[in-house]
Structure formats: C-alpha cells, structure tokens
C-alpha cells in the first residue's frame, strides 16, 4: 500500500466499490501506469461508494466521496490530503427539506462545476433529485424544480434504486443543464435549474406498454463533449442514441454493436466524435456478450463502432461494467472497472489494455484525475 500525499502528479484512479473506496496511483513517468500502480485503501471499509470526484478548481486539490452505510446512511466526505484524512461524517450534511417527505438514500454523482463556476458543485442523488452547493460544498440545497417536479410521482425505481446519476451542463452559470434519472428519463433545464422539461423523444422504454412515453425511460448514462455541447450520447436500458439538439430528439446509433443494452458510456476527452461503451447481453443476463470482455468505440459519432479487445479476456469473461465505472483522461487514457473487481487501463485511446488490479470488491465507480503537484 502506498501512502497518500497527493503529490504524485501522475494519473490517479478514484475507485468506488461496494465495500469502500480505493485510490490507484500510476507509478513512473507519464502517469499512464506503465510502471504499474500503487493501490491505497480501502477508505470507508464496508461502505458502498457510488460517487467520487476530484476538484482542482480555484487552487484546490480536493477529493470527494459519498460512502453509504447500510445501517447509518449516506455521508459526504472530502479530503485535502488525497485520502490521508477525510472530513468528519457530520461536516457536510445533505438533507432533503423536512416538508418534502423524502430522505437521502445514496449519492450517485458528485459533479464539480465548470471553471467558470468554481464554487459550484452538483450532486445527483437517490431518491432522484439534484442538489447544488454554491460555496464549494459547504452548504447544500435541493434544486426545487426537480424536487417538486410534477412527474416525480410517476418516476419509478428498479433494483438499482430511483437515482439521478447524470449531470451535464453547458458550463455557464445559470445556463443549460441535462440530467438523467433511472427510471424517469432525461430532463433539461434552460433557465439555470428553475424548470425542467422531459427530453426523451425517440428513446424507447421496453418495460412499459407505451414504448415511447414522454418520460419514464430508464436512461443509464449520457455524455457530451464541451466543444460540441448540443450533441449528446445516451446509453439506455435497451438503446443507444445520439442527439444533436441538446436532447430535443434522439437518433438510434446502435450500428454494429452486439447489444444495445449496457450501462457505461464515456466521452473521449479530446475528440467530440469518440465515445466508449461496454455492451451487455441483456437486462436479464447483464454480462458481456459471448463471454468476451469488449469495449466498443466509435470515432464517427456513432455511425460505426469497433470492438477493442487487445489485452482483455476473450474467453469465460462474464463481466459487468456499471454506469459510472468507465472513465477517460486526457490525452488518450481510458479506464474501467468490473463487478468482479478488476480494473483495466488503456493509454492509446482504448486500442490496448492492461490490468491495473484485480480482486477488489465489485467496482461501481471509476473516476480518473491528474492531481496537481503540491
């Protein structure tokens, strides 16, 4: 185990698992893990960590994690020394308003705002709602337009819970944002979060009698690239889609994939046409098709997809990669973790892969960052 002093300057993986959080630090030059990885953890042993984040805005070098204890609930924790110590359980309290009748179950997403809103952090939580802090995480408030959304009573939870797991913004304070709820669908706000409208036109819901309702879809993940913010890519509970108009309409792009079911989706950090997914056979089986662990990549905005297999097991690989367990880091690094506790890394845009570690508890969150030098 390596000690954590936050000074590596190389690529670091934030790994959330069902039994705690781990930090994997690249050894050697370049931070791509050529010299191997040091694993640090578990932090919060025994607790589920579905959400982690790194905030390097405004001179900070702060880790965030949201451990969920099945007995004592969810807490939001931060570390300014890269995991050597964490804030106390009571320091950052995320609570629904008393009159809402809701109580926090899990935090599914911790999303620092853009460089233009350096004190803003957003949380996606279960039961589905968005929380926002305007003071870098000191105080939190539920976003009223979603908390009191008229569709709320018709959103429905599956085995994973009623979670708001995706937050995308145009980066402008008070600007446009898209969120996704499983299972409620995608919603967009054009007024800084005051009001939210369903944006699911073209996205199907296999599990409802009406396959194309206004809302209620089980969207698993949406990604976009800041250089082309109106273009969104969506991995659905059955369905792979692209929108070129901020979600007003969606087009099927499941061209040449073995299954359009899956959870994970990640955007290339430097190319707005390149997206990664890990298809799963079906919602009943939820393992990689043909027992082959394959990441799929499009480099043309979804017109075609190619299987990436070099370095990944192609026999007896009954793997599952969940919605937040696939991540990218500039310039061309890609990472993912599996439900069987393996973590893989690529430094060539996904063309080839190396094992970072195995034997972890089920991996539910992978975030990649390049911590600033101390």
């Amino acid at each position, binding site marked *: 185990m390596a000690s954590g002093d936050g000074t590596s300057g190389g690529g670091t993986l934030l790994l959330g698992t069902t039994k705690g959080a781990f930090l994997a630090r690249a050894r050697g030059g370049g931070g791509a893990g050529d010299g191997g990885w040091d694993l640090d953890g578990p932090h919060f042993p025994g607790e589920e960590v579905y959400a982690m984040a790194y905030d390097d805005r405004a001179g900070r070098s702060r880790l965030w994690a949201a451990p969920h204890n099945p007995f004592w609930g969810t807490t939001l924790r931060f570390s300014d020394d890269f995991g050597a110590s964490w804030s106390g359980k009571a320091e950052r309290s995320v609570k629904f308003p008393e009159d809402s009748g809701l109580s926090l179950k899990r935090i599914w997403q911790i999303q620092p705002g853009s460089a233009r809103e350096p004190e803003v952090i957003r949380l996606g939580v279960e039961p589905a709602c968005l929380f926002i802090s305007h003071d870098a995480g000191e105080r939190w408030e539920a976003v009223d337009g979603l908390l009191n959304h008229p569709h709320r009573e018709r959103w429905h*939870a*599956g085995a*994973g819970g009623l979670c708001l797991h995706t937050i995308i913004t145009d980066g402008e304070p008070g600007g446009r944002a898209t969120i996704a709820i*499983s299972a409620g669908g995608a919603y967009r706000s054009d007024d800084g979060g005051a009001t939210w409208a369903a944006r699911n036109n073209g996205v199907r819901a296999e599990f409802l*009698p009406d396959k194309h309702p206004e809302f209620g879809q*089980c969207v698993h993940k949406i990604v976009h690239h800041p250089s082309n913010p109106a273009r969104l890519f969506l991995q659905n509970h059955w369905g792979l889609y692209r929108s070129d108009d901020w979600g007003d309409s969606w087009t099927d792009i499941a061209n040449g994939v073995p299954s359009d079911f899956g*959870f994970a989706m990640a955007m290339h950090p430097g190319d707005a046409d390149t997206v990664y997914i890990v298809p799963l056979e079906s*919602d009943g089986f939820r393992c990689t098709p043909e027992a082959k662990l394959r990441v799929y990549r499009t480099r043309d905005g979804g017109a075609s997809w190619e299987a990436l297999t070099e370095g990944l097991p192609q026999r007896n690989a009954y793997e599952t990669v969940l919605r937040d367990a696939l991540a990218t880091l500039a310039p061309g690094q890609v990472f993912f973790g599996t439900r069987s506790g393996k973590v893989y890394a690529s430094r060539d845009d996904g063309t080839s892969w190396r094992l970072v570690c195995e034997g972890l508890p089920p991996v539910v969150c992978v975030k990649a960052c390049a911590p600033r030098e101390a």
Partner: protein
Amino acid sequence: MPASGTPAAGVVRVTLPAALTEFTGGRAVVEIPGAPASVGDILAGLGAAHPGLRDRLITERGGLRPHVNVFVDGENTRFLGGLDTPVGDGAEVVILPAVSGG
C-alpha cells in the same frame, strides 16, 4: 399467437412477457374468463389456468413481486390500487418485468 378481435363479455385479455410464456404453451396473450373484477382476480385466474404462473407473479406473502408491473389500460397499478385495482370489461391488461437499474 396473440388473440385477435374483441374478447367476449366477461373475458379479460392479458398480455404476458416472453419470460412467462413457458407457462402458457408459448402464448403471449391469454384470456381470463369469469368477469374478473380486480388485478388480484386476474392473477388468480392466470394461476388457475396456467399452473406455476401465479407463483412467478405473487410472493408467498400474497403481494406482487417487487420487479413485476401490471398495467391496466396503460396505467401501472402500483400507482393505483395495487392488486385491488378494478378491471373493467374489455380492459387491456399487460404484465411486464419492471426496469431494474443498477
């Protein structure tokens, strides 16, 4: 084969997911006679006509399994009266596995 046309009076037509058609001889649409008045009556009728099917829908405690949804005329009965939801003559009943996020 799906049934076609309008069901006879007192008969409710139920659409089943593919995963349950092994109990119905491969039929995705079955008819429940006897003027069933509620979702509970429908499920009882399904069980009587197709042994083993009710246990896949109802737990031993008598409640609908948590990841099964029963729709009556497009409405999820979880948001209505559950097993007590009334089923009118000619109602369209659809049973589907619930979405299961993860």
